């Protein structure tokens, strides 16, 4: 599904290399986790994959089902099935959450040449999915992320994911700032979306999230590259011993 090959990325404005030859492959239906110390380039990876301005790819490529992601506009990547759950979801004052969702859903459907959802179909779907994530009707009406608590913002990201039905989901520290109950809700939401045709790339600092969302593969990222990959036990190792030994091992 997602293939990243030898990706080199620097900041556009300054001469600072952040990703230094990162390679990664997430096959269809799998959940991969990326862990790594602060400043290792995890968030940059998620932004570069989703097309945010401010980064320059100097070498390498990233493809989604064979199509080069890096040549696409952010909205084209979204329509192609890529979704980023933001670490810091953005507030949009005055725009109702429901309006935002619906505009997004229909924009993607239109881009793919599918019929737009009717008002009735959309409301039915959004209400059912919101209920699963314990998102109140009031939250659907309020402006996007404005005045939402940390947990509400993250649940709202998962609601968007559920409505947009992407095939490749990137979650950037979705667990940060969540209490135990909120983490369970978010994880249940993600697990409900797991299927053979959908893949996840879960970026996290903590092993705890991976107890709820069982990964197939865990990657350790440091200094702009993947330094080690392994099974779920790798996450436990990090939790136990920190990154020190792993990094020393990788040189």
């Amino acid at each position: 599904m997602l293939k990243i090959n030898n990706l080199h990325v620097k900041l556009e404005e300054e001469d600072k290399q952040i990703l230094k030859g990162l390679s990664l492959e997430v096959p269809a239906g799998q959940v991969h986790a990326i862990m790594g110390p602060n400043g290792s380039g995890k968030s940059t990876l998620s932004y570069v994959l989703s097309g945010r301005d401010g980064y320059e790819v100097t070498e390498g490529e990233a493809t989604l089902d064979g199509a080069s992601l890096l040549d696409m506009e952010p909205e084209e990547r979204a329509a192609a099935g890529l979704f980023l759950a933001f670490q810091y979801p953005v507030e949009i004052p005055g725009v109702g959450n429901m309006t935002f969702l619906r505009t997004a859903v229909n924009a993607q459907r239109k881009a793919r040449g599918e019929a737009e959802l009717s008002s009735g179909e959309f409301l039915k779907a959004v209400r059912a999915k919101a209920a699963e994530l314990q998102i109140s009707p009031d939250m659907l009406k309020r402006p996007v992320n404005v005045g939402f608590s940390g947990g509400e913002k993250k649940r709202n990201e998962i609601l968007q994911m559920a409505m947009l039905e992407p095939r490749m989901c990137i979650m950037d520290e979705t667990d940060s700032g969540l209490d135990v109950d909120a983490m369970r809700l978010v994880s249940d939401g993600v697990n409900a979306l797991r299927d053979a045709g959908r893949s996840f790339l879960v970026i996290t600092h903590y092993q705890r999230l991976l107890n709820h969302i069982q990964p197939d593969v865990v990657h350790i990222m440091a200094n702009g590259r993947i330094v080690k990959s392994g099974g779920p036990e790798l996450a436990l190792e990090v939790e136990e011993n920190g990154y020190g030994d792993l990094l020393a091992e990788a040189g």
Partner: protein
Amino acid sequence: MTATTDLDVREGVDRETVETVQNMGSYKYGWDTEIEMEYAPKGVNEDIVRLISEKNNEPEWMTEWRLAAYRRWVTMTEPKWAMLNYPEIDYQDQYYYARPKSMEVKPKSLDEVDPKLLATYDKLGIPLREQMILAGVEGAEAAPAEGRKVAVDAVFDSVSVGTTFKDELAKAGVIFCSISEAIREHPELVKKYLGSVVPQSDNYFATLNSAVFSDGSFVYIPEGVRCPMELSTYFRINAENTGQFERTLIIADKGSYVSYLEGCTAPKRDTNQLHAAVVEIVILEDAEVKYSTVQNWFPGDEDGKGGIYNFVTKRADCRGDRAKVMWTQVETGSAITWKYPSCILRGNESQGEFYSIAIANNFQQADTGTKMIHLGKNTRSRIVSKGISAGQAQNTYRGLVTMHPRATNSRNYTQCDSLLIGDKCGAHTVPYIEVKNTSSRVEHEATTSKVDDDQLFYCRSRGMDEEEAVALVVNGFCREVLQALPMEFAMEAQSLVAISLEGSVG
């Protein structure tokens, strides 16, 4: 279920916006209707003023009123204090009177109406049933209305071409007709109120309007009557080099209520067209008037060529105690906008509100705002202004809040937000505040911000293209004002916000 229904409706509005934007060209109303016109010679002088008066079959007193205004006007000079740059206007190079030839004799059936005029209504989005009524088709009034009823008065170039729902309104005692008809049929009301809010000598453009106004709308709501439907006027400038000078007079008698909508369009032209309108509103004790405008005159092209010069004087006089007025405006069109809908809060406990969205893109220039003149005790006013500048446009909010010595315990709250798109446009805020008593309170808040890249990226990462994303974010910025509009207008306004900003990013 009530909340749900409300939500669904709002949903529908927003959805429609996005669809409309996707389906529209940049200026939807840029067609021109080839209808045979009758013109007065170019230029303005006493003979032209007399001719206009005569064409409208006006009584002698009206002709004299116009002539007095004209004589005043020739002694005045054009005001230059606004932050607007435009070439000198040659007032003698304009037509001051034009009307469709087919209006010489009022049509009696649909067959007699110029089909091109009907096509015009169609393009303006006037519902078919109202088109039939405007055209005077028999039995049309009895046909079932689609949705909420709105009575329409259409002004095509200088002439009011027809008013719908007249009989139904008459049953409630409401008078809604063209001002030329009111001058003939209701001289006592016109004599009493015309020029009583905006005097003939008020300002250069209002004085010119007083001399040469050719038509416009007249509304009288009798004591205690709640007008049974929204009243609406569509203004359209069609003929080339023609100034449009409409005059609107609204009188809300004691304890009455009316909501009035005004929509404006004009075709694309290379040359600039002049528009100088006057709106006067008289509000007596306990009465309330809501006046909403969606101004979409042709703004000029991407290079700043053409477009309407819009110099408008709008004022409401809350003459009685507890009178209330609410102005809501969405200003998206015109090359030049010079407009300050004002509230004179004369009655004790009277209230004035002003909600405004002003969008200037490409080379548009807008200098707009309001005046809140507090004269009575315990008066209240509220100003919410949202200015959006894009391209190389300049957008100025200019507002006056004044508390007179007698206006004790009065309050004003002003909120003035400016949004910039790109780095070649300008936003300016010029508030004037005068407080002449010690018990009143005036609050002014202002913000200026740029469209946030993070917001745009967030929207785009969810699948919206850049223009859709800008439209969504800007509509959010304007939400407070959009919500003050009647539902029918809110839809149109949202689409306009998006359309006016097309090409402003990237």
